[in-house]
């Protein structure tokens, strides 16, 4: 048997009624009170998520930028300290090993945030390519990799009241002002929140709402979570589990690795062409395959859909046309708690999509029509502080984490 790993907030979850499940080898709360209620709390007030199971990897050295540029499809060349970029990391076939966030702390000092279920795979991939790059560098490779997952905890505070809650716990007026000014896809370094040192406070998240992701030491997590909940509860903050996290990201139209992105679903097929910089000034893994796919067009595409029906269309369900010919399969499905109807994503034959063929699936003998929609499924408010209207940062928009 295998022993499930626990985050430093395990006792917090149990104390708040968390229903603990196995998620990628971690014992995590799928919900506390109700997935639907936690989802609505995040859309209308705020939610506290433990995402400490996610991995953190430091990539440092004079060669760090070139090393990451060779592995990631997005372009990091224009990053300045305090910026965050979302990128797929592809194999030679253009399939996605993982999708991740890159934080630039200082020139030659990067922190990657990677999916919990992919930590081992990512580390093996990074180390193998690090070794290959070292062999190919006659003068030696100035890049070090360090897995910081075990000593890094991560709490996300998400929702329209998130900024108010985190701000109230800032160490003083200057730190509060720094939080106010923090733009979407930027982070502040070295703030203290509720007395807890946070090397990174990032204006990011996986819900489509405004909010922060607070990186801190493992041993500080219970104290930080308790302080955030105490400060936020009067404003409607609730602990929220993985169930709400999944329905929120799907409603926002963000991909989840293993569903909308995988080793067989490229970023181009997933509709993330903006994360693939074919013109960037360095070669990268998957480039040739992605160039071909960009030229010919993906054979299959990820499409988001709603159904006008409350019955949930579940991952794996076959999608056919009216004559029963197979067109693809469902990747994710849930009930949108805000719309009160089933929403989801499916991988569909691109020619059939272009021809506007009907997309049908079956639920217990009933034919359900999938109606393609461009996400988000709900209206999302402006994320991040600073001057209004500067949503050029949308380019940095992050889906999966």
């Amino acid at each position, binding site marked *: 048997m295998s022993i499930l790993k626990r985050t430093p907030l395990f006792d917090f979850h149990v104390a708040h009624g968390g*229903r603990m499940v196995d998620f990628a080898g971690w014992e995590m709360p*799928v*919900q506390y009170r*109700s*997935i*639907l209620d936690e989802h609505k709390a995040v859309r209308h007030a705020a939610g506290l998520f433990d995402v400490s199971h996610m991995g953190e990897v430091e990539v440092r050295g004079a060669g760090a930028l070139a090393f990451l540029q060779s592995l990631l499809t997005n372009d990091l060349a224009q990053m300045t300290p305090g910026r965050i970029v979302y990128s797929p990391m592809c194999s030679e076939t253009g399939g996605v090993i993982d999708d991740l966030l890159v934080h630039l702390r200082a020139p030659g000092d990067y922190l990657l945030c990677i999916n919990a279920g992919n930590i081992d795979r990512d580390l093996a991939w990074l180390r193998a390519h690090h070794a290959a790059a070292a062999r190919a560098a006659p003068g030696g490779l100035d890049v070090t990799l360090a897995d910081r997952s075990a000593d890094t905890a991560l709490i996300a505070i998400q929702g329209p009241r998130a900024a108010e809650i985190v701000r109230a716990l800032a160490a003083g007026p200057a730190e509060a002002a720094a939080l106010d000014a923090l733009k979407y896809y930027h982070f502040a370094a070295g703030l203290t929140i509720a007395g807890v040192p946070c090397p990174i406070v990032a204006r990011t998240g996986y819900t489509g709402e405004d909010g922060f992701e607070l990186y801190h030491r493992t041993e500080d997590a219970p104290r930080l979570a308790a302080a955030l909940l105490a400060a936020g509860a009067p404003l409607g903050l609730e602990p929220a589990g993985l*169930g709400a996290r999944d*329905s929120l990201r799907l409603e926002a139209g963000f991909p989840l690795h293993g569903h909308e992105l995988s080793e067989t679903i490229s970023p181009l097929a997933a509709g993330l062409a903006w994360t693939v910089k074919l013109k960037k000034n360095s070669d990268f893994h998957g480039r040739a395959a992605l160039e071909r796919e960009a030229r010919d067009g993906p054979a299959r595409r990820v499409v988001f859909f709603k159904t006008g029906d*409350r*019955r*949930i269309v*579940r991952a794996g369900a076959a999608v056919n046309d009216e004559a029963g010919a197979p067109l693809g399969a469902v990747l994710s499905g*849930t*009930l949108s708690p805000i719309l009160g109807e089933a929403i989801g994503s499916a991988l569909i034959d691109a020619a059939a999509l272009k021809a506007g063929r009907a997309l049908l699936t079956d639920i*217990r003998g009933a034919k359900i029509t999938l109606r393609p929609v461009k996400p988000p499924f709900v209206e999302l408010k402006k994320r991040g502080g600073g001057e209004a209207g500067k949503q050029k940062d949308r380019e940095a928009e992050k889906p999966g984490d």
Partner: protein
Amino acid sequence: MNNSDIPADLKYAKSHEWVRTGADGTATIGITAYAQNSLGDITYVQLPQPGAMLKAGDAFGVVESVKAASDLYAPISGTVVEVNTGLDSAPEKVNQAPYGEGWLLKLKIARPAEPDALLDAAGYAALIG
């Protein structure tokens, strides 16, 4: 609501449905507090039409939660006389009030001895341990 709530005046099936028999030869059927809690947020309830004849043990409908879809089983035999149409737009009532507003359907009892053969509250409490 207490998830271990097991009203003493009801009968229970091992498949987690409850039965409330009325003086008029009908029985109201729902799922237990324990069952709704195990399922989590209920998002859809599929029920038969009035007039449908059910045999004890028949799958008569489906209750869907965010997690999964689960069959519902008739604890006793009978003819459906009414279904709770309020659940179409508010299936969460099954979570909120499984023994009240979250009832599923009413049957005209076909075999009056069948309810007596079901578990009583103590028997159901022992089942879910």
